[in-house]
C-alpha cells in the first residue's frame, strides 16, 4: 500500500508497462548486443536519444515549479546548434578540440543569455511566462537562420560528432551527459535550499515575498537554467546530424518536454516538483517514440497512435480515475456477496479523503 502511494509509483508503472508491452510484442525490443566493446540495441538507443529531451525537460521542470512555462526551448536549441556549427564551419581547423570547445562554450553562453532574457521578461517586467517565452519561440528560429545565413550548415568534425554518436565505457556519451546533468541539477536543488525556495515561490509567491524570499532571483535562475540546458540539448541534437537545421532542430520539443514533466507527476500549477519523475517521464516519451518506429506505424498515423497512448497513460495516473476504480471494485465486491459492505458507505469516501490528504 505504501508503495502504491509513492508519488513515483504511477509514472514508473506507466514506463514499465510500455516496455513490457513492447517486449511481449517482440522480444527483440529489449535485445542488447555487444559490438567492439560497445553496447547496441533498442534500450541503448532510447538512453542515447533521450538526451536532448531530458535536458530540456529538466529545465522545464524548474520553470514549471515557479508557476511558469518556457516555450522557447526548441528555438534556443536551434540557435545554439546554429552558433556552434557556424563557428566550427568558419574555423580553419574544424576537427580540432580547441575549435569545438570554443564553439560549445559560445553556444551555451548564448543560450544562457537567451534564458536570462526570458527570466528578465518574467521576473523583472512581470510579463506572463507563456507570452514572454513565446517571443523567443517565434523569433529564435529567425535568429538561427540569420546566423547560418539561411542555409543548413553542415560540418565534419570528429570531436563534435563524438558528443552524440560516441561511446564511453560501454554506453553512448550522450547518456553520460544527461546522467551527469541530472545529478548536478538534483544536487544543486536538493543539497542547497534552492529547491525548497523554488517550490515556495511556485506555491505562494506573495507569502514567499513577505517571508523575505528573493523570488525574482529564483525565477530568473530557473529560466536561465532552462535556457542553458536547451543550449546543451541543441548541441547534442546538432552533433547527432552534424547539421544546423534551424527550422527543424528541437521542433515541438517544448510540448514533449511539458508532457514529460507532467507524466513525471509535477503539476503545471507550480510548486512541488520531482526531478526523478521528469527522468521517468522523458524515458516514457522516448520509449513511446521508439515503440511507434518498432511497431512500424506509418508516419501519417503515428501522431494518432502517440496521442492515444498518452491519453491512456495520463488516465492511468489520474487520482480521480483511481478513486473511481476503487469505488467500482468496492461495489463489485459488495453486490455478489449480498452481505454488509465491508467498509460501510465509506469506500468511495475513503478514497476521496486519501486524495485530499495526498493533495
Amino acid at each position: 500500500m505504501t508503495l502504491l502511494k509513492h508519488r513515483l509509483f504511477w509514472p514508473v508503472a506507466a514506463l514499465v508497462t510500455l516496455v513490457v508491452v513492447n517486449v511481449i510484442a517482440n522480444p527483440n525490443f529489449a535485445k542488447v548486443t555487444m559490438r567492439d566493446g560497445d553496447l547496441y540495441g533498442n534500450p541503448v538507443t532510447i538512453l542515447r536519444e533521450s538526451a536532448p529531451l531530458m535536458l530540456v525537460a529538466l529545465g522545464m521542470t524548474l520553470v514549471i515549479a515557479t508557476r511558469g512555462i518556457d516555450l522557447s526551448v526548441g528555438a534556443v536549441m536551434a540557435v545554439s546548434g546554429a552558433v556552434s556549427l557556424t563557428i566550427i564551419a568558419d574555423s580553419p581547423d574544424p576537427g580540432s578540440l580547441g575549435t569545438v570547445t570554443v564553439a560549445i562554450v559560445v553556444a551555451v553562453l548564448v543560450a544562457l543569455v537567451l534564458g536570462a532574457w526570458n527570466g528578465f521578461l518574467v521576473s523583472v517586467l512581470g510579463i506572463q511566462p507563456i507570452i514572454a517565452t513565446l517571443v523567443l519561440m517565434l523569433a529564435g528560429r529567425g535568429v538561427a537562420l540569420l546566423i547560418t545565413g539561411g542555409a543548413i550548415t553542415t560540418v565534419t568534425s570528429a570531436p563534435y560528432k563524438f558528443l552524440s554518436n560516441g561511446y564511453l565505457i560501454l554506453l553512448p556519451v550522450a547518456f553520460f551527459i544527461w546522467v551527469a546533468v541530472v545529478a548536478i541539477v538534483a544536487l544543486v536543488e536538493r543539497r542547497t535550499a534552492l529547491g525548497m525556495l523554488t517550490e515556495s515561490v511556485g506555491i505562494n509567491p506573495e507569502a514567499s515575498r513577505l517571508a523575505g524570499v528573493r523570488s525574482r532571483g529564483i525565477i530568473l535562475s530557473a529560466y536561465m537554467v532552462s535556457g542553458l540546458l536547451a543550449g546543451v540539448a541543441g548541441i547534442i541534437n546538432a552533433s547527432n546530424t552534424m547539421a544546423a537545421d534551424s527550422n527543424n532542430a528541437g521542433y515541438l520539443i517544448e510540448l514533449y518536454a511539458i508532457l514529460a514533466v507532467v507524466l513525471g507527476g509535477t503539476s503545471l500549477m507550480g510548486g512541488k516538483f520531482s526531478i526523478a519523475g521528469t527522468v521517468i517521464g522523458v524515458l516514457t516519451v522516448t520509449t513511446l517514440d521508439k515503440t511507434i518506429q518498432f511497431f512500424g506505424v506509418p508516419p501519417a498515423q503515428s501522431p494518432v497512435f502517440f496521442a492515444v497512448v498518452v491519453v491512456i497513460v495520463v488516465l492511468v495516473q489520474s487520482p480521480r480515475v483511481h478513486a473511481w476504480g476503487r469505488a467500482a471494485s468496492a461495489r463489485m465486491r459488495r453486490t455478489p456477496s449480498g452481505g454488509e459492505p465491508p467498509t460501510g458507505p465509506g469506500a468511495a469516501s475513503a478514497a476521496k479523503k486519501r486524495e485530499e490528504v495526498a493533495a
Partner: protein
Amino acid sequence: MTVDTDVRPLVSMRGITIAFPGVLALDGVDFFLRPGEVHSLMGENGAGKSTLIKALTGVYAIDAGTIEVADEQRDFSSTADAQAAGISTVYQEVNLCANLSVGENVMLGHEPRGLLGIDWNAVHRDAARHLASLGLDLDTRSPLASHSIAIQQLVAISRAMVLDAKVLILDEPTSSLDRGEVDQLFAVIRSLRERGVAILFVSHFLEQVYEISDRITVLRNGALIGEYLVEDLPREALVTAMIGRELDELSALSGAAERTIDRAGTPVLSAEGVGRKGVLEPADLDVFEGEVVGIAGLLGSGRTELVRLLYGADKADAGQISVAGERAKMHAPRHAIDRGIAFSSENRRAEGVVAELSVAENMILGVQAQRGWMRRLSKTEQDAIVAEYMEALGVRPADPTVPIGTLSGGNQQKVLLARWLAMQPRLLILDEPTRGIDVGAKADIQRKVAQLAAEGLSVVFISSELEEVLRITQRLVVLRDRRKIGELDPTEVDLDGLVDYIANAGHTERSATR
C-alpha cells in the same frame, strides 16, 4: 422569537462518525437543525465543526451514522447532492466568481433564457429582485470584485436563495466584517429566519453568537458535548464546555497593560510622517524595546496599511523610518527583515502559509530565505528549530512532516508565528494573529506574545477584538479613516472608552483643528 423544541428538525444527523487516517474527526455526533432557527456550532479548532459541516454539505462522505433532510434519509456523495437537498453554504472566503458581475453571480446556472439564449436583461432583473428581498440595492452589472467582502457575502447568500436553500450554512461569515456590515448581515439572517430557513452559524466571536443564535451545539475533540438554548447557556458555561477546563488563561494576562516600559532610549522603530497617497495619511509611530503597541481602529481604518508600509510590503511615498536610530529604506520586505523586523500578515492563507510545503519547511522558510539559497540549514539546525517551536507553541498534530495546509487555522497560525520567531526579530508585527482561531490557540498565542515582550521583544499588535488589544498592549495607537487620530494608555481607558474614542475622537479632533 422563541424556539419551540418540539418543532420537527429539518436536518437530523445521528451518530455521525468520520475517520481520517490516524484521527477520529467525528465520533458518533448527533446534530439537529430546525426550520426558522439560527443554530450556532461551537468548538475549538479541531473540535470537528468543519468536518461536520463538510459531512452535511457532501464534501466528506460519512463512515457511520445517518443524515435525514426533510424526513428523508440522504446519502450525500457530492456537494451537488447536498445542494439538490436544499443545503447551501457561504464560506469564510467567498467562493464566487470575482470577475463576473453581481447579477451573473447571483443567477449563475439559473439564468432565465429567451429565444436567443440567455436573456441578460431578465438575469439582472431577477438578480436585483433577489438582492432586494434581502434589502440590498446594488448595481447588478458591476463586477463582484468591486464590492467589499461583506457585500460579496450577501451576494453569496442571495445566490443561496436563488437555489431555494432550506438550510443555509454560514461558516465564519463575519471574520472580516466591520460592525456596520455585521449588523447588515444579521438583518439578512433574521429575515431569512422569519421565512423559515434553517441557519447553521459558525463564528469565533462569542458576542455575535449570543446576539444572533437561538440554539447552540458544542463539540469538543470530535464528540458532542451538548445542545443548548442560548438563554440556558451563560458565556462562562459555553467556554467551559468548549475547552473542557475553566478558562482563566486569558484573564491571567491582564497584568500586561500595567508593565512599565522605558521610553527614554532610542526607539526600536521610529516612523515619521510615513504614508502613501490614497492609502494612509502620513503618520508617526515609535515602538520601544519590550513594548507591545496595539493598533486599534475599524476594518479599513488603515491599520494593515500602516504596518505594511513599515515592513516594506508596500512602498511608502512619504516619511522616513529609522530602526534603532538608523535611517532605513523599506522598499521590500527583505529590507525590513535584514533589520530584524518580522511581519505576520492578516491574510493567513494568501500571504502566510505555503500550503503544500510541510510544517517544518514553513517554519524554517524565513530563516532560510534570510540565509539565501546557497547556505541551506543543515538537518540538525532544521530539527532544532522545528522541535523548539512545535513544543513551545503546542502545534497539533505534532508531526512536522505533514503539509501545513492540512492543519486547522489556529495551528497554521502557530506555525507562522514560529516562522517569524525563529528569525529572532527585535520587532514583530502581528496583524490579526488571533482571527478565526479558537480560544485555546488564542490564549497560547497571547501568552507567548506577552512572554516574549517581557523578555525584550517589541511587538506591534493589530486585532479587531478590542478587548484583546486592551489586555496585552502597553500603548494604543488609534486609526480612523486612514489617519492616525491619537494614542491612548490602555490602563486609562476601558472598552467603552476605546470604542467611544474610535467612533468620535477623530471628529472632535478634526473639528478642533479647523
